[in-house]
């Protein structure tokens, strides 16, 4: 991910210790659940609000601001021309841009749209008037503008967002974990889902969520995106050892990682 490749960061709060960094939240095609994760911080939210000056947060506040953002936090994927233009304008006005949530970072579930012929799927949902509603193939934010930090996950894991914010406000690079979810899952002493007879995407997916889903008895769906160097041979061994169909795994991957393949 680009975050790890970056060599220099402008401290978002460098404008001066006297003024608080101006932070803005924006949403594109998404469920807005990642914004909600922020309001879910409870009273910690007030601590965050104390450290920064939130100038835009449409879901929660009405104030509008037209200056430069020290940090723009962007949720959602880009799936129409209006969104693309709006995102570019936000980037122009932002010193630092954070993409947060699976939709912004990998295209998320919105990427499944790219598995269909665009006009066909639009017509399926909107009928003969489908052309009234502009729709372009789903793209994650970094395919449209430069992204400085990524917070993966569907939804984001709140402790990681706080970590990334701390890094961004100090101008430090943040490294997205690039080991598989299994590393965290083992520490949590979960019984391996493969041992329970079901296919899980943990071995291929970036950690950083504290194996959230498996801790709760479910499988990993790959929402944080693929690790850079998945252990392909080991994966092939797992698939054959547990007598799984590779197509089944591939199909599961489409749920969050379809965008990587490009649009039809």
């Amino acid at each position, binding site marked *: 991910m680009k975050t790890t490749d970056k060599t220099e960061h402008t401290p978002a709060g460098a404008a001066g210790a006297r003024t608080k960094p101006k932070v803005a939240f924006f*949403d*594109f*095609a*998404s*469920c*807005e*659940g*990642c*914004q*909600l*994760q922020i*309001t*879910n*911080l*409870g*009273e910690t939210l*007030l601590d965050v*609000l104390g450290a920064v000056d*939130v100038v835009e947060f*449409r*879901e*929660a*506040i*009405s*104030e509008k601001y037209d200056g430069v953002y020290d940090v723009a936090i962007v949720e*959602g994927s880009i*799936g*129409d021309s*209006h969104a693309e233009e709006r995102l570019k304008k936000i980037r122009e006005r932002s010193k630092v841009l954070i993409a947060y949530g699976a939709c912004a970072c990998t295209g998320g*579930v*919105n990427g*499944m*749209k790219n*598995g*269909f012929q665009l006009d*066909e*799927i*639009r017509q*399926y*949902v*909107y*009928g003969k*008037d489908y052309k*009234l*509603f502009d*729709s372009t193939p789903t793209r994650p934010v970094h395919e449209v503008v430069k992204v400085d930090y990524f917070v993966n996950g569907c*939804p984001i894991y709140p402790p990681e967002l706080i970590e990334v914010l701390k890094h961004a406000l100090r101008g430090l690079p943040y490294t997205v974990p690039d080991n598989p979810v299994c590393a965290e899952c083992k520490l949590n002493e979960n019984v391996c*889902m493969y041992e*329970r*007879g*079901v*296919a899980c995407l943990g071995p291929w997916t970036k950690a950083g969520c504290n194996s*959230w*889903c498996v801790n*709760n*008895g*479910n*499988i990993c769906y790959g929402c944080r995106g693929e690790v850079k160097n998945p252990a392909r041979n080991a994966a092939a061994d797992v698939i054959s050892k547990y007598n799984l169909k590779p197509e*089944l795994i591939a199909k599961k991957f489409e*749920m969050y990682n379809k965008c990587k393949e490009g649009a039809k």
Partner: protein
Amino acid sequence: MAATKDLDIRVEYVTRVEGHGNIVANVKSGKVEKCEFHVVETPRLFEGMLRGRSVFEAQHITSRICGICSCGHSLASIAAAEDALGVKPTEQTIKLRKLLLDYEFLDSHVLHAFLLVAPDALGVPSFVPLVATHNAVVRQILRLKKAVNDCCDILVGRHTHPITAIVGGWTKLPRPRDVDEQIRILEGMAADLEPLLKLAKTLKLPDFERDTEYVALVSDDGEYPMLSGDIGSTDGKRVPRKDYRLTTNEFVDQRSSAKFTKWNRDSLFVGALARFNLNHDKLLPEAKAYAKEIGLKPVCRNPFMNTMAQVVEIIHCYHHALAILKDLKRNGVDLSQEITVGLNEKGAVPVRAGNGVGSVEVPRGILHHNYETDKDGLIKHANCIIPTNQNVNNIEHDFAKFLPEILGETKDAIRLKLEMLVRAYDPCISCSAHYLDVTFVE
């Protein structure tokens, strides 16, 4: 003066609602030419994307339609999938689903009624200035939200996109200490809830009425229906959920190429006020007493009072959730009912071709999911009709009556009141599974 007034209002991105919506109003010489509520959300095409996916995955995917109602979407999705597959959930599973729905209502209503609407009532643009002026109140609200979220963390792993609730049951069931902890958290909420309920009584909402058709789940038992039942209306109609399409009647208007919903009249209303109007008798005594105290009586035809109906439901759900938890504490949770996700992939769960409907009350109104599956349990067709979609037509009909009534006021006051009217419906536009730009020209 109203008779000669010209007005041109454009509110881009109504704030403090979930999703993107614009208000456009035009008045010429005191006559309303246009007053529309536009939905400008990027189409996300969920129903299209579901095709070819396993019906067992539908909960995970459709949960992502909306971050705020993800538990509600999950429950409607599970109900539709189980209906299609012919799976009958156990009594314990249903009890825990009802508990989850109580949490969903509490979380959403607290956010909406207190954090998003209260600023209008107190005359400030958002809760941020309230941090300085009403700090204790803001802290009470945030603590309540956190408390409900902590309960969800225990029950479903997290509130946004629940993990443990799946087709057939639960991947993880609450242990005795988990039940105790939820009771402790809920009982602890009382101290913050009480002053907010008092404060809510002082909210001054615009005086406005319009007769419309209120639609919600109805049932024959004594419980306030949220998870199951038939679809009923204040016009005396009742149909089983498999006939949900009759009650939503999506249609295209020639003048505006827009999809509307209606049932027996020009428009319909879903949400807390509809539930209150239809099922007031079944509210728990504490909720009923509060409604009486604030003078909320069925049938109430003031859409602004939807917020107060939500406050009444906060009380109901709070006590309903506590009663379920105390029952679980008394009778224990049968942990042998924990199920493993994904076993259907190896044929452990029989699948069949089917067509299932799940109709569930979620905070903003009745939500329908409908899946048609093939013999392998793959989705052939999907349809999700969300509450806000059903309300947009009603919002525009309200505009048409409300705007002429307030034309004598300043442009700012009019704009604020139109925004408040939209917010009263607690619209959730990000649920753009099925969204069309809706226009209404008078």
